[in-house]
Structure formats: C-alpha cells, structure tokens
C-alpha cells in the first residue's frame, strides 16, 4: 500500500485509540510525501536528523487559511504582510527560530531554575493527596476530570505566580488554547476565532498580573521574567511585554494538556499491564523508569510540524523548499531499528533515548517538571487506589491527533488507602 494517504488516517479520530499500526506502515518509507504535499517523517534516525537541521524552521508554519488574493492591492501587498509580520514577531518561542528563539528560551531557562522546579515536588504531593482524598466514598471516578486535569494547571499557576483564586479561569483558558498547539485543529476557523477571543482575555489578565509583579516582586517565574535579571543591560536581559505574555501563555499551554495526557496514559497503560502497577505499588523507586518508558510507548505529543526552508535530500527523497514537514515522534519511538521489541512496554530497557520531549533546540523546557508531576501522581495513585479497574477500554479520546489522550478514563476501585 502506498503511504501517501496514511497520515490522513492518523488524523482520523477513528484511529485515535491505536495509531501504532499505521506508524509501522509509514516507517516502510521513512520520509513519505502525502497527497497534500506534507512530508511525514516516521523513523527515529530521520527524525533525529531533521530535528537538528538548519533547513527546518518552526516559524511561519503554513497559514491555515491559504493565502488568497483579495484583489485589493492595499490589503494584499501592505496590510496583510504587515499583519503577518506582527503576528510572527509575537509568536511564542516554540514557533520561532534562532536567534530570537534562543534569547527568549534563555531567559525562561534562567527563571525555570532547577531549585524552583525541585521545590514543586512538595506542593505537587500535597495537591495530589488533596485530589485523592476527594475520591473517598466513591466507587468510580473519571481520572481525567477528577485528577489529571486539575493537577498540572495548579502546579504551573503556582510556579508562574498566578493567584489561587484565578486558577479555575486559567484552567478554562488552558484547555481552549491547547488547540492552538494542535496542528490539525489550528486550521479550523471556529477554533481560531475562539482562540483569538481567549488569547485576548488571557493577555489582558496577564498584563495586569505583570504590572503587579513589577510593583510587588515575588518569588515566582513571572516576577523574574517581568523584571529581568539584575546583571547586564536591560535590553537583552528582559523580554518586552508582548513576548512576556506569549511566553507565559506558552508555559501554561505547553505544560498543561501534555502532562494531563502523560498521567492519564500512564494509568491506562499500567492497568493494561497490571504487573507493572503492582510493581510500582511495591516499589516507588521504579517510577522514573516507568515514566521514561511511558514517554516512549505512549508519548503525549505524537508529532510536531515544521517547514522546510530549503530543499532537503534525505532517505532517498528530497523534501522541497516550503513543504510542511511532520516529525512523527511517536513513530520514531516505536522504530524497531532503534528500539528492540519496540511494541513491548518494558520499563527495564537500558537504552531509552525516546523522542517524547522532542529534541534539538526546541527540546521540552518543562521536562524536569513534567517528570516530577507524573512521578508524584503515579506513585500516590498506585499506593492509594485499592484494586483499580478500567471501566472502558479503549477509553474515548479527545479529537487531537498530536496532543493525543483520553477525554475520560473511568476507573472503578475498592476505596482508597490512607495517604
């Protein structure tokens, strides 16, 4: 079978529960042109190569509504390009190339310090236990709504310095804006309109908050980003307000649904292979390896899109300039040329250089935080849920094919153990 329509099938919600057989077919041709001109890259070596190739851009991803001449010279030649340029300049750094990307990311990395992230462990533990306490007296929960969803948004709000009373609103925004990172939803007009509305609201909120952080600095990321560091000159050491808002939104959005999916996918997978659930219950020290394997086996970010800005010869084909490129991370993670027995869930594998957090210059900023959140959550769930069972397998999935994860995960169980 030709591979030229396979990616369309990957996008088809009917294949959401198990896209992996499609990936295996795609891998027969590591770089395959789809009918719409997109090039899908599905093998580990080729993804790893392109993720660090200077001919691959994260900027100017193809405009969802393809450029159409309005016939109006002022609109076509003047208004639109300027608007596009403004939009480009205010993109968060996940959608920008060096050197801008590096400057913005560098500032974030400084604020996202290892100590700060480590300090979140305790808070996450408390939060997790609070959420689990609420399961008391129930025989059945929806893990997504009752647990996975509230956790990451609260954690990132604490880290950023969003007041607790504003968290519920933040959660709503995060959910809506996650679609902006979802390549196949970004395209539809209704979603776009909603996102724009939502972005306006969150921007206003953040601008106020940033002003407060400048008046009354606190120990949080937003304060650091808003005030810059004390050393060096202000221009390079501080973000402008547009970038500041875009960055704060990025941190919220990039760390939200991804972490929700990691926790939910993990519970789903561990209940499918209950011997591993039991192992985790007996020995929480295996959690980090379990989580790495989860990031390989069921990665929350299944693919990322890029743009070829020059012809790129690779694996027997040439990706032409201006072609959209899909890096199918989840398929690279199942590549038998890279991982022995790739479809087996095996937390004991010794060589697990998965692509779950991406790679190269856009490698996930939040990886250490995500690892802590998932570890704390899974260890507590395994310890405290008595005899949990999946009510429905496969569960219903959210529509996204890139940020892929269950919409609900209903569990029944025999009460909770003391924390």
């Amino acid at each position, binding site marked *: 079978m030709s591979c030229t329509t396979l990616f369309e099938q990957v996008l088809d919600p009917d294949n959401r529960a198990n896209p992996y057989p499609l990936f295996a077919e795609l891998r027969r041709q590591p770089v395959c042109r789809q009918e719409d001109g997109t090039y899908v890259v599905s093998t580990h070596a080729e993804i*790893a*190569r392109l993720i*660090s*190739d*200077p*001919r*691959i*851009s994260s900027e100017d991803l193809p405009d969802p509504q393809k450029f159409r001449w309005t016939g109006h010279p002022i609109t076509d030649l003047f208004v639109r390009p300027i608007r596009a340029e403004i939009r480009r300049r205010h993109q968060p750094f996940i959608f920008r*190339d*060096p*050197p801008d990307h590096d400057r913005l990311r560098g500032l974030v990395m400084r604020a996202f310090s290892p100590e700060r992230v480590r300090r979140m462990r305790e808070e996450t533990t408390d939060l997790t236990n609070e959420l689990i306490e609420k399961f008391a007296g129930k025989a059945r929960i929806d893990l997504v709504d009752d647990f996975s969803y509230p956790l990451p948004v609260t954690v990132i709000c604490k880290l950023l310095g969003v007041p607790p009373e504003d968290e519920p609103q933040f959660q709503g925004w995060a959910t809506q804006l996650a679609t902006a990172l979802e390549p196949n939803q970004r395209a539809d007009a209704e979603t776009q309109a909603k996102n724009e509305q939502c972005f306006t609201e969150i921007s206003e909120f953040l601008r106020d908050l940033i002003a407060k952080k400048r008046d009354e600095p606190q120990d949080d990321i937003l304060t650091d980003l808003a005030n810059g560091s004390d050393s060096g000159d202000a221009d390079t050491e501080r973000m402008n307000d547009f970038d500041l808002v875009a960055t704060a939104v990025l941190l919220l959005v990039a760390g939200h649904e991804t972490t929700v999916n990691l926790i939910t996918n993990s519970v789903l997978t561990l209940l499918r292979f209950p011997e591993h659930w039991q192992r985790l219950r007996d020995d929480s020290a295996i959690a980090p390896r379990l989580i790495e394997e989860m990031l390989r086996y069921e990665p929350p970010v299944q693919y990322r899109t890029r743009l070829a*800005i*020059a012809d790129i010869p690779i694996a027997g084909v040439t990706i032409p*300039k201006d072609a959209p490129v899909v890096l199918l991370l989840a398929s690279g993670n199942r590549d038998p040329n890279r991982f022995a027995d790739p479809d087996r869930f095996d937390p004991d594998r010794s060589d697990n250089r998965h692509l779950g957090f991406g790679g*190269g*210059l856009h490698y996930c900023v939040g990886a250490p935080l995500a690892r802590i959140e998932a570890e704390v959550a899974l260890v507590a769930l395994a310890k405290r849920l008595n005899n949990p069972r999946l009510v429905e397998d496969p569960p219903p999935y959210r529509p996204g094919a890139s940020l892929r994860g269950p919409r609900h995960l209903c569990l029944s169980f025999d009460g909770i153990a003391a924390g």
Partner: protein
Amino acid sequence: MSEAPSGAPERIVVVGASLAGLSAAHALRGEGFAGSLTLVGDERHAPYDRPPLSKQVLRGLFSPDTTLPRHPDLNAEFRLGTPASSLDLDARTVSLGDGTTLPYDRLLIATGTRARPWPKSDEASLDGVFTLRNRDDATKLSGRLKAGPRRVVLVGGGFIGFEVASTCRDLDIPVTVLVRDGQPLEAALGPRLGGLVGEIARERGVDLRLGAEIERMEAEGGRLTGVTLKGGERIEADIVVAAIGAVRNVEWLEGAGLAADEGGVLCDGYCRVLRQNGDIVPDVFAAGDIARWPNPHQDEALVAVEHWGNARAQAKAAARNMLAGPAAGLARHDHLPDFWSQQFGLTIKLVGLTEGADSLVIAHGSLEERRFVALYGREGRTVAAASIDSARWLPAYAAAIRERAPFPPISDAVDQPRLRIEEP
C-alpha cells in the same frame, strides 16, 4: 591479500589499557566473545579518561581519578603496570616486561601516544618543567598550580596547551603562551579561527606570543626560575608546560616486521595492521591514537586521528572485525572524525578534517559574536565544520561532509547570514 585467520578466536590480547583498549574489550564481549581476554597496560592505573585531565582535573574540580566505567561482566584479565616489550607475529605471542609471554589468536595494538618530551634533557628534568598526558602528570601539575606559581609558560599552540592556559587563567595564574609557527590551533582549525581563539585568549589575560621560542631555561638548585626567549627576552616563571605534540608508542614493535614508525602503526580500513612489505596481518589489529589508516573522508590519505571519539569507534570496528568469520564480512572503519575542546569559557567542536581546506564560510552566527558554525571546503567539496558555542547544527553538516556535498552545502537556512566564501 592474505587469508582470513582460521577458526574462531579463543584468546584475545589487547596491548594498551586505555580508552581504545577498554572500548574494544567491551565491544568484544558485547559481540559475544566468550574466550579469554587479557589487557596489558604499562600504567599502574585502571583505564581512565584523559580529556578531563587538562580541564576539570587541572582546575581542581574533578579528582584525578577519572577511571572509565567498566562493565561488571567484562571478565577480562588486566595486566597493569606491565609493558609489552615485543611481538612475534609467527609464534603469535606478545612478550611482557615481567618476562612472561602471552599467546594470542587475535591481538589489538592500542598503545596510543605519550607526550613529546622537551628536547633538551637537562632542561626537561628540571623541577618545574612538565608535560601532560597521564594521570600522574595531571596530579603533579595541579598540585603545583594550587601552590600559586608566579607565572606559567606554556610552549605549544595546540589544544592541550590552550586548555592548560585557560585553566591557569581560571585559577588567576599569569600565563605566557609561546607559539612557534603560525596561529594557535592552526593545524586543526586553520589560521582564521585559530587566530580568533588566540584573540579570545588574549582578552582573558593570556600573554600570547606568536613566532616565539625558548632559547634556554634558567634554574637555581635544579628548580626552574625563568626562561629566555630567542631574541633575548627573559620571562620569570616557576613552571613550564611543554605541550609540543605526541610521540607514538611503537618502540615495543621494533623487529616485529610491522609497518610502524613515528607516524603510527599502519593498518587498512578494517583496522588490520600491515607488514613492512604491505601485506595484511589478518589476526593483528590496531585502534586509537596509535593507528594510521586510509581515511575515506580524506581521499584515502593515510591519517592518524588522535581524538577520543575515534578511539572508541575504531576500537569497536576492530573488535567486530576480530570476530568476523570469513563469511560475515569485515566492517570498514569509516567514522567521521570529531573533536571537542573547552577553553576560555567556550566549547569548540569540530567534525571532519580541515587538512588542505581552501575555503571557509560562516554558516551561522558570526565571528564577532563568538558564536558560529564555520564550514571548510576543499576543491568544491565540504570537508569539515567547526562550531564555537553553537554545536546544534553540526549533525546536519556532518551528514553533508559524509556525503561530500558541494561547498557550501546548505544555504537558505535558519539563522544564516549571507554566505561569503573566504580563505580558511
């Protein structure tokens, strides 16, 4: 061409128990070799890593114990503190300095190099005159640096010398670097980038002298007190570090009939050593700093690549080929040379070989920013790429070098200035 060795090997001997030797031992076990495995090393230390010696160890950040990790199931016999003294190809034996003889079915020569000693032996033996190749050198030198010398004089414009100079500056020790020919690091990076690193070194307080040489050293009671340069200038100093290159450890092979000289032990692309008449010796292999072989990335010119990455890759290739039966076919050692160095707060990386390069472009960043990727071309082909503090794109350029892509290989890339071809 001589025949493949008969039968699967039962006894493998590795001479030289350092990076290449240990990597080969690991690879042999990894490939399933279950017979007896002996590593002979003249140093008394278990195999250890050298790159940190001129960097973190000298700085006092790491302990001098840079022992390389060893697999618990390696199951090899280590004959440490024992040099190999001769090789008999016909009897298939290696004689050791302690009078014992080891028979082998396959032999790996991995005796590497040693620091080139200061040519005047009376000066070389002065208290305060150092070279740096092994752990004991690093321990002694770092002790002396800690004592706060008035000034260190470094002789040589290579990477190790520059790393030592950088460490001295980190420790706030005055340092003079004497480079006899051309620019610093010129052999690896060419005059342009070498000159830039020299400029950076100067900014960091290094007293860099180009075209300078020591006429003589001065001492009192056997202790170094200073040096006089050719031309007459005298520099007060307590320490001289001679980083003037390496000498290959081939003496023990004298009389064995191998094509081995100061250029190294000659082997083919499959790591099999050659006799003086050019015949292949099918059961003796070489890897690491000691080896010289036709390099596919340099038009099959005979080169030795004295880099960490090559020692590991070549050891692996040699190990595979030692075990390959006649049917399995031999694996060509086609590793693309790569190298890194840390100095003056910069990370310098290099892939490919710049030898003979006739053109250079800055493909990302700029020399002024001191963050860039530079590409080297030779006769219209891309042969090497060097980066300072921006290694992220190197893999793409490494692929281009491997494919011998036209120069310059990639244009219209992210964060790329307009390409201007210049002299390297």
